[in-house]
């Protein structure tokens, strides 16, 4: 760094500290934070990937019209407000004025229209905007969207972080999947991506935080950047990630395992942030293939499992033994069907097994090679062995496993995390089982309940329908939810004002000198 840059940096830092940070804070804004992550993103084109690893980074670079706040509700982000017509079919978004893209251009309705059109065309989660009929600009700062049908969850959909409906400059939005330059409106701008090594973002100097907010709030709120740079470094080996933290090479580790968290907790140099619940651990059944086509067989499996054993082995010290199909803090949480959860009774399981058509064949449990998923399969295998069910565990990488798991052949059991669905809410959790998409054979009851849920207008009606849904999940044993798991995020004592969330948010964070 030459002197000119240095003094400029100092001057800016000084200005920032006067302008933003109350004098009581000792730290000077600026500096670089390095985060150790497990793996790199497949792409930084937010529209075409719903991978968690991509989201962690893209949500720093891009923004959406509406975004989810701390409670998961949709609140304005790039939009200032929205007015909805009485028939519920026309949404008029008022855009914030003066929002700059990283290339210096101001964001206008033209960019928003182009981005939404691109998403409707090639977005991987374009079902989120399936209700959209037309998208049109109405002057430079208004965008009008008309829907084919009224949709109560429309704002929830367009604010979903799943594969974010990021607003790109119109000229980027004209490009094909995974071909854009990474230009957004977010508080950080993209610097470089060296695959298998790191992604670097730097503070976007012209970023204007949304004036409607005074504080950080989920993925919306006031996004104020108090550091110069953030680097996501990809370190696949767990021990190497921790070593990097302890040597000071990185300041944040995105996720550590239970024993590591326990060790670091004893050291005042580290702060452990428990992000719990983060996701469901779900064990899917293939209803199209014997013997998992038999409800009594599926009930035998549920009755046999000891959920504490499964969750403690897979996610030591960071799990909840909870069978509900929403997170326990959700207003929708209900105990419907829970009496069938975590029974851990081998005799009861054998009784179900006797009623089923199972006659000694070997069942197949597929899983990708993430350790916790393999652990779940291993524990289930050993419990089922105890009631006389023979099981092969088939471990392959994610592309192979998901290829098999999306078809009705070649598997009976499949386990993986359900992260974004419960975050989005009960409607999304239900839709994972609609039309048999998760279990390969449609369940007419589930389809009916989900249909009524989407049309329901009052919270009470929705709650009643969700309770019915959860009861059905157990009565037909559509799938098993083993429990909730969380993440241990670790920061060292240099990182201040870090508040953990679904992604490691780098706005609002400061670095002590």
């Amino acid at each position, binding site marked *: 760094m030459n002197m000119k840059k240095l003094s400029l940096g100092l001057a800016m830092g000084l200005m920032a500290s006067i302008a933003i940070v109350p004098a009581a804070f000792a730290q000077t804004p600026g500096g670089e934070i390095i985060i150790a992550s497990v793996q790199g993103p497949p792409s930084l084109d937010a529209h075409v990937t719903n991978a968690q690893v991509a989201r962690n980074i893209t949500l720093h670079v891009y923004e959406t019209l509406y975004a989810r706040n701390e409670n998961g509700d949709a609140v304005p982000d790039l939009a200032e407000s929205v007015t909805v017509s009485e028939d519920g079919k026309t949404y008029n978004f008022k855009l914030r004025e003066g929002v700059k893209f990283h290339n210096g251009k101001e964001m206008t309705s033209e960019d928003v229209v182009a981005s939404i059109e691109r998403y409707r065309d090639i977005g991987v989660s374009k079902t989120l905007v399936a209700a959209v009929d037309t998208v049109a600009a109405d002057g430079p700062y208004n965008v009008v969207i008309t829907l084919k049908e009224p949709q109560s969850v429309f704002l929830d959909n367009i604010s979903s972080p799943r594969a974010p409906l990021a607003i790109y400059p119109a000229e980027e939005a004209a490009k094909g999947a995974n071909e854009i330059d990474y230009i957004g409106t977010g508080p950080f701008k993209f610097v470089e991506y060296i695959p298998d090594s790191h992604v670097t973002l730097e503070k976007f100097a012209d970023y204007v935080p949304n004036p409607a907010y005074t504080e950080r709030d989920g993925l919306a709120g006031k996004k104020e950047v108090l550091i110069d740079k953030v680097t996501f470094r990809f370190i696949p*080996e*767990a*021990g190497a990630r*921790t*070593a990097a933290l302890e040597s000071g090479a990185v300041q944040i580790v995105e996720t550590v*395992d239970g*024993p*590591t968290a*326990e*060790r670091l907790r004893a050291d005042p140099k580290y702060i452990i942030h428990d992000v719990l619940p983060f996701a469901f651990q779900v064990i899917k059944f293939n209803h199209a293939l014997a013997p998992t086509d038999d409800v009594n067989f599926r009930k035998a499996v549920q009755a046999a499992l000891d959920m*504490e*054993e499964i969750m*403690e*082995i897979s996610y*030591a010290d960071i799990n909840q033994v909870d069978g509900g199909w929403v997170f326990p803090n959700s207003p929708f949480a209900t105990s419907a069907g829970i009496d069938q959860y975590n029974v851990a009774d081998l005799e009861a399981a054998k009784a179900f097994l006797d009623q089923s058509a199972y006659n000694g064949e070997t069942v197949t449990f597929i899983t990708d*090679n993430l*350790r916790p998923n*393999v*652990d779940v*399969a*291993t*524990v289930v*295998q*050993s419990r089922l062995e105890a009631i006389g069910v023979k099981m*092969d*565990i*088939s*471990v*392959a*990488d994610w592309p*192979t496993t998901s290829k098999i798991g999306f078809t009705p052949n070649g598997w009976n059991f499949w386990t993986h995390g359900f992260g974004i669905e419960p975050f989005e809410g009960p409607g999304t959790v239900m839709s994972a089982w609609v039309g048999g998409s998760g279990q390969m054979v449609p369940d007419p009851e589930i389809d009916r309940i989900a249909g009524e849920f989407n049309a329901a207008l009052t919270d009470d009606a929705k709650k009643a329908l969700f309770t019915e849904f959860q009861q059905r999940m157990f009565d037909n044993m559509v799938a098993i939810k083993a429990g909730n798991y969380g993440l241990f995020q670790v920061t060292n004592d240099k990182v201040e004002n870090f508040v953990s969330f679904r992604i490691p948010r780098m706005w609002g964070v400061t670095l002590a000198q």
Partner: protein
Amino acid sequence: MSTQALDALPKAQSPFLTFMSRLLDNRSFVIGATLFLFVVLLAVFADVITPYEPNANNFRARLQPPSAEHWFGTDHFGRDILTRVIYGGRLSLTIGIAVVIFTGVFGTLIGAAAGYFRRLDNIIMRFMDALMAFPSILLAITVAATLGASVPNVILALGIATTPHTARIVRASVLVVREMEYVEAARALGAGHARILFRHILANSLAPLIVRLTYVFASVILAEAVLSYLGVGPPPPAPTFGGIIANGRDFMVEAPWVTLFPGLIILFTVLGLNLLGDGLRDVLDPRIKV
């Protein structure tokens, strides 16, 4: 190349006894055989020796350091590492034997065909060169990761990766032997190709092949561990040496015993096999190097 091996075998009295006494005089062989036999016996009598069930979970006893009850400690399932290491020998050694048989059979057939039928030589060996040039660990990863990491697939992957070199060794000794007088004589007496190949040529290519296969065994034990480390080894719950290490990698700093002990057993086994190979080489075919 194997003239000395020829001399070594058909001497006076009982050739087998001579051979055995030479082997037992060879220190590498004796130490290597002892080490290897020890691991084999552990694996064979695993049921009798081990105090615990290899797959019995007890998460309340997870990641315990080595102690009087658990000499090698426990893993994050609370399973006894010593028990798993001993049982792990079963699958790791089985895979080793299976790959040795695979590469022994295919390497011999391919090498013999290339060495004996000159017309096939070029095309076969170019293909083998291609397989050899293909980084074998990547080949194994590709097969195991994509076809699913079952035991047969791991065997197939490692078998394919080790066969070209074996074929090359067999071919080399076939090339030498086929020009020898007694083979010429057999040919002149009207013996068929099959008879010449199997009775005369292959019998005398055995020495370098056996030495090679010993080293293959050693390399397979190592390769299985690498595949397991990369997440494409044999699936759970059956323990393998590499599988146990892979299971402990996430807790490497807090619970190093989970990775340490199975690694030492691998070292021990491979060392034994390498010494065994050295001994066999010295006795069978002193001219082969490394």
